[in-house]
């Protein structure tokens, strides 16, 4: 029975990890929390649903959703956030606009798609697999495989490619990055796009698992993903992934040994405990602020 809960916890944890990575990417480069990330996740889910109902096929539907959702984030950054950065607005101003953007997105989804819970097709089938006592859905296998591939892919991108090196350079010293000839605007847009992409993939995986979508679906999972990224050490991709998995497992074990009612509370209590012990999160670095 416990193994069953661990499997479920891991599945959920990987989804949290994908969301957490989205926060972490943006935070790493702009030192800003994108509070619209949960809403972006909901936008991604609705986009996929829309394109799937147009009978475009699953893969094209997902790719189009990534392009539109990622593009939406890039446009938002270029029009609003970039202007704030240019005017050297305090961080809090950017934070508030992301909260506003989140509300606007959720409202737009409500107006365009309606407020009700819509059913989402089981894109990966709903076959059950049984190994010994452990039963899981086939879509859980998808979650495991796709999210691990995506997390590894992002890690490789950031650590082994030229654009990844540019991202790390802008993150550490954007003025010096300018002097290297790095187009910081472009790098920031790539980062937002990747953040949007991870949200869309998370939405694809979880919506096919639960088979529902609705405009406010991103609110709680957005908070959980944010917590996971802080727990793991915001700014660190590896930390975000581990933070997500820990959160997922903790929730699942709470359901197993206490009660489903404590699920959300335990997740946040765990966050408090870890932050008290390691204020920068599990894999976060103590902040070096240089003048």
């Amino acid at each position: 029975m416990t193994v069953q809960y661990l499997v479920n916890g891991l599945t959920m944890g990987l989804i949290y990890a994908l969301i957490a990575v989205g926060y972490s990417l943006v935070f790493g480069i702009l030192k800003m929390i994108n509070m619209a990330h949960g809403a972006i996740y909901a936008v991604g889910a609705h986009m996929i649903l829309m394109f799937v109902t147009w009978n475009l096929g699953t893969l094209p539907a997902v790719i189009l959703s990534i392009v539109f959702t990622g593009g939406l984030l890039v446009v938002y950054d270029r029009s609003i956030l970039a202007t704030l950065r240019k005017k050297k607005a305090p961080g809090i101003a950017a934070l508030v606009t992301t909260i506003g953007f989140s509300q606007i997105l959720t409202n737009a989804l409500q107006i365009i798609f309606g407020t009700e819970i819509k059913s989402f097709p089981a894109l990966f089938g709903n076959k059950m697999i049984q190994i010994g006592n452990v039963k899981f859905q086939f879509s859980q296998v998808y979650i495991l495989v796709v999210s691990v591939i995506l997390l590894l892919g992002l890690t490789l991108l950031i650590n082994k490619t030229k654009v990844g090196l540019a991202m790390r350079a802008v993150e550490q010293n954007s003025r010096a990055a300018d002097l290297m000839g790095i187009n910081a605007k472009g790098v920031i847009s790539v980062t937002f796009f990747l953040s949007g992409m991870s949200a869309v993939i998370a939405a694809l995986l979880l919506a096919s698992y639960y088979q529902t979508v609705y405009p406010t679906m991103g609110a709680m999972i957005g908070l959980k993903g944010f917590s996971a990224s802080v727990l793991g050490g915001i700014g660190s991709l590896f930390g975000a992934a581990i933070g997500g998995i820990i959160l997922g497992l903790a929730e699942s074990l709470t359901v197993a040994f206490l009660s489903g009612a404590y699920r959300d509370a335990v997740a946040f209590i765990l966050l408090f405990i870890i932050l008290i012990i390691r204020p920068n999160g599990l894999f976060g670095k103590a902040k070096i602020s240089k003048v």
Partner: protein
Amino acid sequence: MLTIDSMNTYYGNIHALKGIDFDVNDGELVTLIGSNGAGKSTTLLTIAGVLKAASGSKIVFDGHDLTRMSAPQIVKMGVTLCPEGREVFPELSVEDNLRLGAYCRKDKKEIADSFDYVYDLFPRLVERKKQQAGTLSGGEQQMLAIGRALMNKPKLLMLDEPSMGLAPNLVLEIFSLIKEIHKQGTTILLVEQNANMALKIADRCYVLEVGTVKFHGDAKEMQNNDEVRKAYLGSK
């Protein structure tokens, strides 16, 4: 190679550069000296496109107007600034820092040659290749910053206070390296507070004072100019 004509730069309301004129010829080592706040760093930052020159300013490099270009475009033109305070990427390895210096270049073979050139010039960086730049000593960070700038294979290398905060023996080492880089054919525009040292290795010199060029001329003559000596070299 570089011609600057009535360059004006403002920090908000503060008129930092008040119509500066100077030029740097191909193959020269030109130094800008002057006291704190004279506008030396501002001059370099404006040429590099980090600060915007006010309208009417002319900055022409190899026939191209730099005032219309962004900082990354100017780097691509072969004008590289090694900034004051070194500004290395602290959590990246020495190697990655150097690789970023060559960010605008495509040819793998030429980049590899530049790596060899820089490692040859600064053997100490070879030993520290994999080390995080933030863990290097001040002198090593300065070498890394100069090396990183050289990775762009600049036509014009601008150095902003390379000797700042270094121990006297390191200052000597850095200056002899600058001389070496110049001898090997790189045109250099050097900003220094250590005017004595700068004049020793420079061909020509411009003295800045509160945003304007006060004197200019041959570096050797400047060393003997009484007024300059009194104001900037410590008179004897």
